C-alpha cells in the first residue's frame, strides 16, 4: 500500500506540485486567482511550449536536443531580417523550413553516423551560435510589423493566437503519439532500439525525424517570439533547452525513452510558469530564479531515475542517447 502511494505520488508529481503552489498562493496572495493571471500564464509558457511538445516526442524516442537554444534565437534574427522583403506568411514558412533543415543536420549525424545526440547537438549549438552572432554582429534586430504583432497578441477573450497555436501543437502531438503508426513507432524506438529495429521499424528514419521536428518547432517558436517582442535578438531563448526538458520530465516523460505524453508536458510547463510567476511576486532575485530552475532539473531527473532502483518495479533504468 505504501509502495502504491509512493508510486502514485511519483507519477503525478506535477499535479501535486501545482496543487501545492495554488494552496501557497491562496494564503500568500488571494488576488492571484484571477482570469487574467491564467491567460498571462498561458501566454508566458506558450512559445517555449511549442518546443516542449517537440522535445516530448524526441525524449519519448530516446533522444535529446541541446541545439534548440541556438536555433530559436537564430530564427528570431532570420525572421527580423526577412520580414521586410518576404512578407509575414512567407517569412514564417521559410524560417520554419530553415529550422527543419538544421534539425536534419542534427538528425543525420545522430541517426546515420550514430554519434551521441548530446555531442552532436552540443557541437551544432556552438556552431549555430557562432553563425548567428556573425550574422547579427551581436546586436538585436528590429522587426516592427503590425500584422506580426496582431498574430502574436491578437486574442479572443484573453487567449492569444500564440496560445491557440500552442494548444494546437499539444493536441496534434498527442494525436500523433497515440493514434498514428508514426507515434507508435516513436514509442517503440525509444523503448528499445534494437527490438524496434528487429520488428521492422525504420528506426533510423524515426531518429532522423525527431530532430527535424525539433528544429522546425524551435524555429516556429522563434518566429512567434519575434512577432510578440517585435525584435530578433541573439540573447532570446538561451534557456529554452533546460526549460522544456525540465517541463517534460516533470510531466512524467521518462528520459529513458518510451514513456510520456504532451498533455503532461503542458502541465510541467504550467508548473514552471507558475513557479516563475510566484518568484516574481515574492521578489526572488533573477539569479536566484535561475539557480532554482537548475536545481529543479537536478531534483526531477533524480526522481525520474529512482523508481528503477526499487525492487519489483516495472521501470527501466535511465539511459539517454544512442543505445549502442
Amino acid at each position: 500500500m505504501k509502495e502504491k502511494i509512493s508510486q502514485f505520488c511519483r507519477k503525478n508529481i506535477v499535479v501535486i506540485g501545482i496543487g501545492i503552489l495554488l494552496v501557497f498562493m491562496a494564503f500568500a496572495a488571494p488576488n492571484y486567482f484571477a482570469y487574467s493571471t491564467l491567460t498571462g500564464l498561458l501566454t508566458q509558457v506558450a512559445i517555449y511550449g511549442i518546443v516542449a511538445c517537440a522535445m516530448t516526442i524526441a525524449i519519448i524516442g530516446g533522444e535529446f536536443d541541446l541545439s534548440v537554444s541556438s536555433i530559436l534565437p537564430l530564427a528570431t534574427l532570420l525572421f527580423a531580417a526577412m520580414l521586410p522583403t518576404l512578407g509575414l506568411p512567407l517569412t514564417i514558412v521559410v524560417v520554419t523550413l530553415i529550422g527543419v533543415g538544421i534539425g536534419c543536420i542534427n538528425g543525420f549525424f545522430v541517426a546515420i553516423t550514430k554519434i551521441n545526440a548530446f555531442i552532436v547537438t552540443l557541437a551544432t549549438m556552438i556552431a549555430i551560435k557562432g553563425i548567428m552572432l556573425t550574422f547579427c554582429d551581436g546586436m538585436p534586430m528590429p522587426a516592427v510589423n503590425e500584422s506580426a504583432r496582431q498574430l502574436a497578441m491578437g486574442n479572443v477573450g484573453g487567449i492569444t493566437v500564440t496560445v491557440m497555436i500552442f494548444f494546437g501543437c499539444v493536441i496534434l502531438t498527442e494525436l500523433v503519439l497515440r493514434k498514428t503508426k508514426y507515434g507508435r513507432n516513436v514509442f517503440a524506438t525509444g523503448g528499445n532500439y534494437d527490438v524496434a529495429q528487429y520488428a521492422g521499424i525504420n528506426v533510423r528514419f524515426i531518429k532522423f525525424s525527431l530532430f527535424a521536428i525539433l528544429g522546425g518547432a524551435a524555429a516556429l517558436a522563434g518566429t512567434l517570439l519575434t512577432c510578440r517582442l517585435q525584435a530578433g535578438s541573439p540573447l532570446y531563448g538561451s534557456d529554452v533547452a533546460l526549460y522544456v526538458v525540465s517541463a517534460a520530465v516533470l510531466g512524467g516523460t521518462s528520459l529513458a525513452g518510451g514513456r510520456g505524453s504532451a498533455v503532461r508536458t503542458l502541465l510541467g510547463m504550467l508548473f514552471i510558469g507558475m513557479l516563475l510567476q510566484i518568484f516574481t511576486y515574492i521578489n526572488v532575485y533573477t539569479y536566484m530564479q535561475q539557480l532554482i530552475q537548475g536545481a529543479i532539473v537536478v531534483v526531477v531527473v533524480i526522481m525520474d531515475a529512482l523508481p528503477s532502483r526499487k525492487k519489483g518495479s516495472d521501470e527501466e533504468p535511465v539511459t539517454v542517447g544512442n543505445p549502442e
Partner: protein
Amino acid sequence: MGEKTVSKKRGKFDLIISKYGILFVLAAIIIVAGIISPAFLTGQNILNILKQVSATGMLAIGMTFVIISGGVDLSMGSILSLCGVVCVIMIPLVGTPLAILIALAVGVVCGTLNGIFITLTGGTMGSAFIITFGMATALGSLALTVTNGANVNAAAFADFKEIGQGSWGIVPITVVIFVVAVIAAQFVLRKTTFGRINYCLGINDEATHLSGIKVKKFRVLVYTVAGLFTALGAVMLCSRVSSASPIQGEGYELDAIAAVVLGGTRMGGGSGSAAKTVIGVLMFGILTNALNVMGVSSYQQMIVKGIIIMVAVLMDKRSIRVENEMLARTV
C-alpha cells in the same frame, strides 16, 4: 585475394591515420599559421600560448578523468566561475593561501555533488549530461548571486597575481603547475588502483560492480577529482587576468571536451590518457591563437570550434571501426 590485400593495406594506412592523425593535423596548423602570420612562430607567442592553455588545460585534465569513466561534466565552466569568484572575494578576508584553499574546497564540494547526483540517477552518460547541465545553470547563477553580477578585481593582490603572471626564469609558473598536474594525472591513471578502476567504469560498470568494486564510491570520486582540477584552473585563470567574473567560465567546459576528444580520448569511456589530452589542449590552444593572430572574430571561432568537435568525433568513430575490422581480421 587481390581485394583482400588492398583492404589490408588500406587497413594499415587507416590505423596509422587513426593513431597519429592528430599529430599531422597539429603540424599542419602550425605550418599554415606560421606562413600566414610571422608573428605566430615567435618565442614570445609560443610562451603566450603555453600560458593561455595551462588554465584551460587543467579543466581538460579533469574532464579526461570524467570521460574515461564514461561520463561527462558540463558544469565545469560554472564551477570555474564560482571558484574564481569565491577565491578573489576571500583574499582580502583571509589572505591568499587560505582563499585558494577555500576555492579548491568549493570545487571539490561541487564536483562531489555532481558525482552523488549522477550516481543516484544510474551513472550513465545520459544522466551525467542532464545532471551537470542542470548543475551548470544552478552553479552559474550561484556565482552571479555571490557577486551580484559584478566582476571582482584582484589587481591589488600581488602575491595572488604572482601565480598566473610570474615566472621562474623564462618558464611561467602556470606552465609549471600544468606540467606537474599532467604528470600527476598520468601517474594516477596508469599506476594506481583508482586510475585502473576509472578505466573499468568506462568499459563496463556492471562487470566492475560484479568484480567487487564499489562502483558508486569511485564514480563520485571521479567527479570530485574533476572539481578539484577545475578549481585549480580557476585560481590560475583569475590570477593571470587579475580579476574574477561570474561568467568567466562560460563555454570552458566545451573547450575542455573538445580538447579531450581531439587528443583521442574516446567519448563513452574506457580509453584515453592525460598525455593524449595535452596534445588536444595544445592543438586547441594553437588553433585559437592562430585564429586570433589571423584576425578571425570570436564569433566565427565558435563556428570553427563546433565543426572541430564534430570532425574529431567522426574521426574517432571511423578509427573505432577500423580497429574493429583489424581485430576481426586477426581473429
